[in-house]
């Protein structure tokens, strides 16, 4: 581009130079090949595969046969699907409502400079280290009405049949999910808070804004993209709360905690109906993509630039 305004000899030099750069840049594409290979073979092809399998019948062992739209008709006519869909969205929304304020406030809290907060933070993040299987097993023991927390703390209202009553089991699932995932989102918010330019607070101070005003007019708006990042991970992640629920409730009692991912597994690998299970998988993918696109919209495009707006 600059060739036009430069003098002739210089233009010639720059021409070969930029050509060189172009070549160098294009040559770099080779470096993506290994990552691309793995991603194509074990993510993109399976993604196409799941769509194809949704039009077949397969028991997981034998031959795969064509099934046309049969799976789709049978799954879409199955009230179990709508139960699973409803539960998935319910858990997603309630989890978001529970986890976001707690993570945000804890993030702000742990971003503080006091020593004791740093020490607390170290313990806050312990659940991050545990596998979902371990967490689920621990809570099952903890909630034993006779030998668990209820007796230990002397709080009889904790002695419920947590895994036997649908509403209680659902509440428990949401609580344990929060227990396990709030630490991670706290970490994200902590980082977000630390990146807010100090000058904004100084300016607000001069204008006489109090702490609460500062929180709502500076901290919260400045955390907009952090909130979107955290929410995206939370919402899309909620589609895959499989392991925790599988070990904790197994989808029960009845079908009261049988979310989509679990429904897919149980149909496919327990009932040996891979076709219908693939239909559920396709629905999961569509929901995930739609949610991510929606949240992206909320965030707008130019992330880096707009974050520093008003400086």
């Amino acid at each position, binding site marked *: 581009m600059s060739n036009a305004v430069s003098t002739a000899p210089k233009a010639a030099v720059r021409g070969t130079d930029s050509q060189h750069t172009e070549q160098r840049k294009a040559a770099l594409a080779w470096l993506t090949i290994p990552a691309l290979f793995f991603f194509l073979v074990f993510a993109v092809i399976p993604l196409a595969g799941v769509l194809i399998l949704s039009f077949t019948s397969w028991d997981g062992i034998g031959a795969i046969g064509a099934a046309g739209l049969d799976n789709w008709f049978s799954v879409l006519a199955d009230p179990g699907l709508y139960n699973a869909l409803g539960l998935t969205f319910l858990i997603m929304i309630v989890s978001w409502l529970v986890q976001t304020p707690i993570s945000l406030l804890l993030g702000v809290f742990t971003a503080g400079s006091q020593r004791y907060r740093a020490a607390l933070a170290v313990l806050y993040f312990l659940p991050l280290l545990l596998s*979902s299987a371990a967490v689920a*097993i621990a809570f099952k023991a903890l909630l034993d009405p006779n030998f668990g927390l209820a007796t230990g703390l002397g709080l009889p209202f904790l002695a419920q049949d947590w895994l036997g009553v649908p509403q209680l089991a659902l509440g428990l699932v949401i609580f344990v999910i929060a227990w396990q995932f709030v630490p991670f989102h706290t970490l994200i918010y902590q980082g977000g808070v630390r990146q807010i330019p100090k000058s904004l607070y100084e300016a607000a101070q001069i204008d006489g804004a109090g702490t609460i005003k500062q929180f709502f007019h500076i901290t919260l708006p400045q955390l907009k993209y952090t909130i979107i990042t955290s929410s995206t991970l939370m919402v899309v992640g909620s589609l895959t709360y499989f392991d925790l629920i599988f070990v904790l409730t197994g989808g029960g009692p009845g079908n009261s905690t049988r979310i989509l991912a679990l429904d897919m597994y149980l149909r496919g690998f327990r009932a040996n109906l891979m076709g219908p299970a693939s239909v559920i998988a396709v629905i999961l993918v569509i929901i995930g993509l739609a949610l991510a696109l929606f949240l992206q919209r909320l965030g707008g495009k130019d992330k880096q630039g707009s974050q520093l707006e008003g400086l």
Partner: protein
Amino acid sequence: MSTVLKSNAQEARTASLGGSAAASRGMGQRLRRLNIPGGLGGWLWLAIIILPVYYVVITSLKTQAGYFGQNPLALPTEPTLENYQLVLEADFAQYFMNSAIVTLGSVIPTVLISFMASFAIVRGGGRFLKLVNGMFLMGLAIPLQATIIPIYLMIIRLNLYDSLLALMLPSIAFAIPLTVLILSNFIRDVPNELFESMRLDGCSEWQTMWRLALPLTRPAIVTVAIYNGLHVWNGFLLPLVLTQSPGLRVLPLGLWTFQGEFSVNIPAVLASVVLSTLPILVLYVIGRRQLLAGLTAGFSK
């Protein structure tokens, strides 16, 4: 909400609230008043986090009689390690080895190939790289667990069913999108002048990648390695679907089956929970600063 809001005022150094700085300098009384609600919330959350952990640890040290006889939150009167012995006899050493193999075998390739791809995406140009980047970004939005059925089919057809390699291959693929995103954010932060000077010194892009970009993004690399490592170490669905021999169980799966077999012996079950977490806990104690600082920076960009 206002509890932590108020405590917010104390964050003189990080958030630099001018007034709170003044408060902490001058009025000790005000400082204490403001600190209480935030601190209270903080300690409450600590209790919620610690209580289950405490319960698991002390119960794992109790005898069966102690479990049935004592207050559940009391320290064991006769602490015993026999539960741990029972767990170790149930092949947990083998599960541990399997988990370690799968984790290292997934994380090292993931980080290596993702780093190369990130470098190309940031430093290179052209339609192809844009397309690749877009594809990885889309991978972030897809719940990759939904692809488990075709992966199961592929693993069977590749004759890899019931092998540790079967767990590594999809783990690598699933981890690539986020790893590339975080690493390319960090490589983008390397000042352009440094790349220029490498070029003027006659270094090829390949050399620049290893000698300049790699050392400068080391903290990010450690972070994504730990993050991915945690994910693979704790992963449950892939081992559940893709393996079947007891000898190939990884820790979470081992935990689950152990819990099924020993459901009446809660102290032993909880000992297995502690034992399976112990290695990660040791790593956390050693690498805490790096992990927390890295994760905060990586996701808040």
